[in-house]
């Protein structure tokens, strides 16, 4: 019975990997060269899907934090931990991809683009919350505090973004490669869904890890009778 639950995660992951192989193959070998960026533009077929999904994962983490704080329940705490960790992993990947994109395009590894810089700041913010979780032994406090910290960090995202944008206002607004034609669209979409499925599978499985750990921490359950005997 319990064995079946985890299958969902692996199936989702497998679908994701299959879509990613298909989309990447398309993007690398079938899609035409972009007229301005040349072959480098093919990086976009992984870069953009990773960006969308990293944002999605962290937004989901925010939703979990709200649910965990307002409605309670260990389920949401486990999901918060999972979504945060997967989101941080994707955001780290996003920063690396951003650098690889920036080097041939602008000649530097890091060009202080507001989106990329905000991502890097968010990585450290959410990694800090994961560290906080690691160092709090009481599961109740851990759940509340990480939910609170996640909400504050998420509320901060737009402020960080705008401050970095103003700060770097001398910088030319970047021309994201326009993906007008269908030939550019499809690999992007397929990869986006591929990472979405893979991410869903990873969050699902990671939440199971968190739930199992929590189960170990909360056990043995406190007996109710002895404590409630006294009025």
């Amino acid at each position, binding site marked *: 019975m319990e064995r079946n639950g985890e299958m969902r995660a692996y199936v989702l992951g497998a679908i994701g990997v299959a879509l990613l192989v298909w989309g990447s193959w398309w993007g690398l070998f079938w899609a035409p060269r972009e007229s301005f960026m040349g072959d480098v533009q093919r990086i976009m077929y992984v870069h953009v899907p990773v960006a969308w999904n990293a944002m999605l994962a962290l937004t989901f983490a925010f939703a979990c934090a709200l649910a965990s704080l307002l409605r309670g329940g260990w389920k949401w705490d486990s999901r918060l931990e999972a979504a945060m960790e997967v989101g941080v992993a994707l955001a780290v990947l996003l920063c690396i991809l951003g650098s690889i994109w920036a080097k*041939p395009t602008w000649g530097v590894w890091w060009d202080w683009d507001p989106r990329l810089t905000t991502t890097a700041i968010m990585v450290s913010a959410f990694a800090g919350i994961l560290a906080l979780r690691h160092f709090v032994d009481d599961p109740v406090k851990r759940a509340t505090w990480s939910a609170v910290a996640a909400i504050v960090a998420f509320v901060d995202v737009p402020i960080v973004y705008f401050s970095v944008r103003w700060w770097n206002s001398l910088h030319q607004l970047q021309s994201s490669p326009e993906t007008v034609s269908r030939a550019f669209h499809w690999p992007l979409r397929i990869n986006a869904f591929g990472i979405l499925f893979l991410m869903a599978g990873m969050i699902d499985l990671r939440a199971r*890890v968190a739930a199992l750990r929590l189960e170990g921490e909360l056990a043995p359950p406190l007996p109710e009778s002895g404590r409630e005997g006294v009025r």
Partner: protein
Amino acid sequence: MGVIEGGWEFVWAAYGVTAAVLAGYAFSIHLRYRAERRRRERERSAT
């Protein structure tokens, strides 16, 4: 004009890093899940 020539090494690097990070991370979750399951089964059988 302004067309970036070549750059395939960056493309390969991007796809390679993506594959490596995603695969490595997914595998680490799989390992952690297995470890947690085993730990719990040990605890179950102990009681």
